[in-house]
């Protein structure tokens, strides 16, 4: 099936540093998402993105978070500065449309903030 690639699979950084998580969505998809999962618990919606803009974001999408997809390259989640509670697995997803469309997820980036 369609593949969403996430790079890297693991990232370890010191608290206060900046980190960028990269996502290569399905090639013809137009909507992009980030979800956060802590310790195998349920996935929590962070943000969705379309046509260069954030469409919706949750309370978990703190001011330190930002997303972009410059010139159709990677869809990125940047955290600056990082905090200990940002340690989690971050999943990227993409879909062709909004509503009534299957979301396809990447395999996640495990972020550890020390």
């Amino acid at each position: 099936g369609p593949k969403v690639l996430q790079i890297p699979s693991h990232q370890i950084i010191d608290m206060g540093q900046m980190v960028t998580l990269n996502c290569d969505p399905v090639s013809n998809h137009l909507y992009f998402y980030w979800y956060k999962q802590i310790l195998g618990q349920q996935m929590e919606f962070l943000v969705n993105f379309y046509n260069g803009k954030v469409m919706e974001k949750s309370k978990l999408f703190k001011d330190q978070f930002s997303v972009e997809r410059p010139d159709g390259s990677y869809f990125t989640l940047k955290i600056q500065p990082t905090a200990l509670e940002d340690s989690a697995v971050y999943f990227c997803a993409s879909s062709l449309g909004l509503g009534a469309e299957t979301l396809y997820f990447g395999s996640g980036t495990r972020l550890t903030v020390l």
Partner: protein
Amino acid sequence: GDKVKQSPSALSLQEGTNSALRCNFSIAATTVQWFLQNPRGSLINLFYLVPGTKENGRLKSAFDSKESYSTLHIRDAQLEDSGTYFCAAEGGFASALTFGSGTKVIPCLP
């Protein structure tokens, strides 16, 4: 409370038996997706449902939007069915998927 309540939270899987997982929604769910998160952490798409039923091999899923629930049935369970099953509904926070807390399916060794 939980907008998507999944049950059971854990399930012992005996080879050859049938199992049923369920999600109840307190949001006005319009579509439902079921995923299997394998031991490596990857999310595998199982079903995308509008109200109705779908079947794929030994898996069958149903979504009843009026009664606000969805089910996933595993027939003739195999060891490779192990992992955590998540349901997720659209219809809560804008267009975002709201996930249940998962059902962990663990192999039961004979």
